[in-house]
């Protein structure tokens, strides 16, 4: 039996190759994801050992960590330590050097006068001590004094600056003219980060104006281990009476590197979950294809299998022979997939490198990755082949004597199950789209905040029910839906359209299974398209209704204070409201919280702040204005008292914590964070390193036009580098562009599932051509030309593809219609269905159909006219 199974694979290489390719593509995604992870990890391992090279570190003892509810980012806030502690530590036994490490971001202008940037990686300013001999200077020497900087090797190359060049940097919000004193080489990669070295005294003065630094790096004297060093440092901290020493802790370099490593892994892990989601979709689609491929093979081999049964093969043996084939397909596909995936990861790495983020790690997949990928591929293949194999095993020996393929079984049970699922799904979507969060709270009798996400959960469950239901129901839907879709071709291309329609609806199960792969992909694509269009429009509406200022100035990282001063000095500017943002912590709440400082005039002239409860005057009384989303998530109400951590002691509730009363609950879609604080309080409680001017709102002076102001402001801020000036339209456009960029990534990912779907259509068509050889001969005998025959196959293919797409779009658009209700508190207010884009999807599906039909159509037109019709 095994020999027969293997011979059969050889005999049907074409179809086997399709199944192998499907598995390979799915597995490639899984393997690629893990390979890419390996690439990132090995790269960052090297980066970490370069950038955190100290033997031990002294830093604020306490941390607040967790995931920020609103921004979604994971933040760890360490207490700062006084830089002055370094002098004490340097005297401890076994210490070679103790250096405060004030670190910040700066803007560097290159030799060509433009801002030096890399793919989103920041330019880091850090002290380069003259007595640090670990890293050699390639040219020049360490920076000395405020007018000198040193550059890391890659940074120098990228900026075009060399030792002796003069250039401009924006440091601590001010423009400085500086000379490059030297170029230094780290002996490891930095993943594209740009590093600028400063005189340690200058770095302290500019990056740590309050004398507090995130950490003090300590180098051990020769022969002193990291653990010994940590213990002596701890002893030194306990013995001194320098302020802040008691709140500081000593840790080994390995601990710091391990923590950094864990944080990075967290972020990579998030990316990986995202990628694996798409891999899952691809594999689901691949499973469909494999199931299809095998069920067709089984159907084609019916008579052969029946003959085997007549010769005494047991059902188990037949089952086994099909599963052996699946195993071969799975293993071969997985191996190809691992190779493809590794190539994929290397390709992505190359793209990153080309855009400036050097990923120097290895993409060679680890053994666990290979084993996992192969296991996934084999399991998917065997699972896909299981049902067809069972059907093969149950072929009765008398089948061998029967003519033609048996008709498909009734669809009543399947239709009923599908209908129930679809009904449940629709009901769920309706519920999710009509029941607001507040209503859920009432219905469930839940406490504040506990009903949050209820709508989303209902929608998610309904979406799953809807997708599964439609896939189950699809064979029943095939006849009516395809009949409608085929109408133009039936009328325009007589009799080809009618022939094609007949073929598509003849075997509704097969049509549904083939179209199913596209359906899954299209559900995701159309739902994403609706989400993106709705989000863009919602944001545009918010910008248009809420933004009162004429222009806004924003930058990365933040707007330099010098730029604000420059703008303030312009006569064209009548109103200026800079808003700072910074992280703080709140007692009893996991995670760091974004706080904003609100200029008094902001709500009146710059941006609409909607009051939900309380009044805006509360800010004048020294109270906080809490943003509604944070209030809901944490159960904060007007009158509550929040305990905030401070910069020196960022753990809320510890010594020196500050309390503030909630004066109002407000809503503003422009600010994603937790609360607005009075200015003095903001300065006290936010961590300096996280504090930036996020945005400044500008209003024109009397008698000046917006254009005049813009013409004046733009050159004033351009001197500070990456600072942009936008009006409401620009802002809405740039927000929409961000959304569309996300969408592009989603489309790129889903292209893979569509590719697999194409393979599925090719497979189905090729098989149905084989099955219909006699019918094709007949048609040719009565005068159907080759091109006409090819057109019939083409129309069939397009009908199948458009059918799958239509189902997917219906589910995707239908399901996402509930998004505005579910995501109301995330700022999604408007439901916009981008019919244009969806029309493009349908056209794309038709094109996919044509492409998929090419090979089967050629095969069909090669069927000899005589085939199967002759009597001899």
């Amino acid at each position: 039996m095994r020999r027969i199974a293997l011979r059969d694979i050889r005999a049907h290489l074409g179809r086997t190759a399709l199944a192998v390719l499907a598995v390979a593509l799915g597995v490639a995604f899984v393997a690629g994801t893990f390979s890419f992870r390996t690439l990132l990890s090995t790269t960052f391992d090297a980066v970490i050992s370069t950038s955190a090279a100290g033997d031990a570190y002294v830093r604020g003892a306490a941390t607040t960590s967790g995931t920020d509810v609103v921004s979604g980012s994971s933040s760890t806030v360490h207490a700062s330590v006084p830089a002055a502690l370094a002098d004490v530590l340097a005297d401890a036994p076994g210490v070679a050097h103790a250096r405060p490490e004030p670190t910040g971001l700066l803007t560097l202008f290159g030799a060509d006068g433009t801002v030096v940037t890399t793919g989103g990686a920041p330019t880091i300013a850090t002290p380069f001590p003259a007595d640090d001999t670990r890293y050699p200077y390639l040219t020049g020497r360490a920076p000395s004094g405020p007018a000198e900087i040193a550059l890391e090797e890659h940074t120098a190359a990228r900026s075009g600056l060399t030792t002796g060049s003069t250039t401009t940097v924006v440091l601590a919000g001010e423009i400085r003219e500086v000379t490059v004193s030297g170029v230094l080489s780290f002996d490891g990669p930095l993943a594209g980060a740009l590093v600028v070295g400063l005189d340690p005294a200058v770095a302290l003065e500019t990056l740590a104006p309050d004398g507090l630094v995130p950490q003090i790096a300590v180098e051990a004297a020769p022969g002193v281990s990291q653990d010994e060093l940590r213990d002596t440092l701890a002893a030194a901290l306990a013995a001194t009476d320098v302020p802040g020493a008691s709140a500081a802790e000593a840790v080994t370099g390995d601990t710091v590197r391990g923590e950094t490593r864990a944080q990075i892994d967290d972020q990579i892990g998030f990316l990986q979950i995202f990628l694996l989601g798409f891999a899952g979709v691809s594999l689901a689609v691949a499973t469909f294809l494999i199931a299809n491929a095998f069920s067709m093979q089984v159907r084609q081999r019916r008579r052969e299998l029946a003959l085997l049964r007549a010769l005494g093969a047991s059902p188990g043996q037949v089952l086994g022979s099909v599963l052996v084939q699946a195993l071969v397909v799975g293993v071969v596909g997985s191996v190809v997939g691992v190779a493809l995936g590794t190539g994929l990861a290397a390709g992505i790495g190359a793209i990153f490198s080309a855009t400036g983020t050097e990923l120097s790690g290895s993409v060679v997949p680890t053994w666990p990755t290979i084993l996992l990928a192969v296991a996934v591929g084999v399991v998917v293949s065997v699972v896909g082949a299981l049902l067809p194999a069972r059907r093969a095993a149950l072929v009765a020996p008398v089948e061998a004597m029967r003519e033609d393929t048996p008709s498909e079984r009734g669809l009543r049970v399947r239709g009923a199950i599908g209908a129930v699922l679809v009904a449940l799904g629709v009901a769920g979507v309706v519920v999710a789209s009509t029941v607001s969060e507040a209503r859920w709270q009432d219905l469930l009798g839940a406490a504040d905040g506990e009903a949050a996400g209820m709508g989303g959960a209902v929608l998610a469950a309904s979406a799953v029910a809807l997708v599964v239901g439609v896939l189950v129901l699809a064979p029943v839907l095939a006849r009516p839906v395809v009949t409608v879709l085929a109408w133009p071709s039936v009328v325009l291309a007589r009799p080809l359209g009618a022939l094609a329609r007949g073929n598509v609806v003849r075997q509704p199960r097969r049509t549904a299974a083939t179209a199913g792969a596209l359906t899954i992909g299209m559900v995701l694509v159309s739902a994403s398209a609706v989400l993106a269009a709705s989000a863009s429009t919602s944001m545009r509406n918010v910008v248009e209704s809420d933004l009162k200022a004429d222009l806004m100035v924003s930058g990365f990282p933040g707007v330099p204070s010098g730029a604000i001063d420059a703008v303030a000095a312009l006569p064209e500017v009548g109103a200026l409201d800079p808003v700072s943002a910074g992280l703080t912590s709140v007692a009893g709440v996991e995670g760091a919280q974004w706080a904003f400082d609100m200029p008094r005039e902001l709500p009146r002239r710059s941006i609409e702040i909607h009051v939900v409860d309380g009044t805006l005057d509360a800010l004048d009384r020294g109270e906080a204005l809490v943003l509604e989303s944070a209030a809901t998530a944490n159960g904060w109400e007007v009158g509550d008292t929040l305990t905030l951590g401070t910069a020196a002691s960022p753990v809320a509730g510890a010594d020196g914590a500050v309390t503030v009363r909630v004066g109002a609950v407000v809503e503003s879609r422009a600010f994603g964070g937790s609360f607005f604080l009075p200015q003095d309080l903001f300065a006290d409680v936010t961590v300096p390193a996280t504090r930036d001017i996020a945005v400044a709102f500008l209003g024109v002076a009397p008698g000046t036009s917006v254009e005049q102001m813009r013409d004046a402001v733009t050159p004033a801020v351009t001197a500070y580098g990456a600072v942009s000036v936008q009006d409401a339209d620009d802002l809405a456009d740039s927000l929409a562009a961000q959304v569309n960029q996300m969408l592009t990534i989603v489309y790129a990912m889903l292209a893979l599932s569509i590719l697999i779907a194409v393979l599925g259509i090719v497979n189905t068509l090729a098989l149905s051509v084989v099955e219909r050889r006699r019918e094709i001969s007949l048609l040719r005998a009565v005068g159907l030309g080759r091109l006409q025959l090819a057109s019939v196959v083409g129309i069939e293919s397009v009908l199948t593809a458009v059918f799958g797409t239509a189902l997917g779009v219906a589910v995707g658009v239908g399901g996402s219609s509930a998004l505005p209700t579910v995501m109301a508190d995330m700022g999604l207010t408007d439901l916009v269905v981008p019919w244009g884009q969806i029309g493009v999807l349908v056209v794309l599906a038709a094109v996919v159909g044509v492409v998929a039909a090419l090979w089967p159509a050629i095969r069909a037109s090669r069927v000899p006219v005589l085939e199967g019709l002759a009597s001899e």
Partner: protein
Amino acid sequence: MTTATAHAPRRTGVGILPVGRVARAWARNLTKEYGTGATAVTALDDVDVDLEEGRLTAIMGPSGSGKSTLMHCLAGLDRPTSGTVVVGDHDVTRMRQRHLTQLRRTGLGFVFQSFNLVPTLTAEENITLPLDIARERVDRAWFDEVVEAVGLRDRLSHRPGELSGGQQQRVACARALVTRPALVLADEPTGNLDSRSAGEVLGFLRRSVDELGQTVAMVTHDPRAASYAHRVLFLADGRLADVLENPTAETVLERLGALTAGTSPAAVTA
């Protein structure tokens, strides 16, 4: 496209009609070999036949005698190794594929042993299929006449799966006739039918000749089927062995017996 006269060049032979009778289709020196060299098989060996206009001609012979090959060469479905085939005004042996396809649409009608109908189309759609493919208008009067003749008026909206074997073959016959082809070729049209259904189909084929004036050639190995013909051509080992006019089942059986016994009668029965 090469045109030829409807009259075959004069020559004598068992398959050639005597002077005064008109051939609708004819073949001369028809030879068909499969394979080359040592493995070559000669399916047809220098065959001359005429198919008389307005008559039903049966082609008989034992398995492997070349009767199906002859029919496929006549239909342009297979290219002869040498020789000429003319159907109506067309030299089939010199036609290009495209023109052959066009000829099959309206110049020739086919009835096969089985699998004659497209399962997804109704009986009526199947009947008009060649016209639909050729994008020609259906002559309703002729259509009605044909449908009436095959007795399928109340079955037109049925799909093949809902028709009996005999009914399916009658639909196939109607399809073969609906274009008023120069020649209808039937390849074992009753091979899969019970005797009553076979009688219906054969009766119809004969009526299409007698009443509708069509020209029909039919390959069969059933003497009873052959007895419906005006003229029977007997093939053996790729050669035309004998011809029988106005056959009955008994005379056909007799000739067949003689053929299989290997003794080919020298005389042509008139």
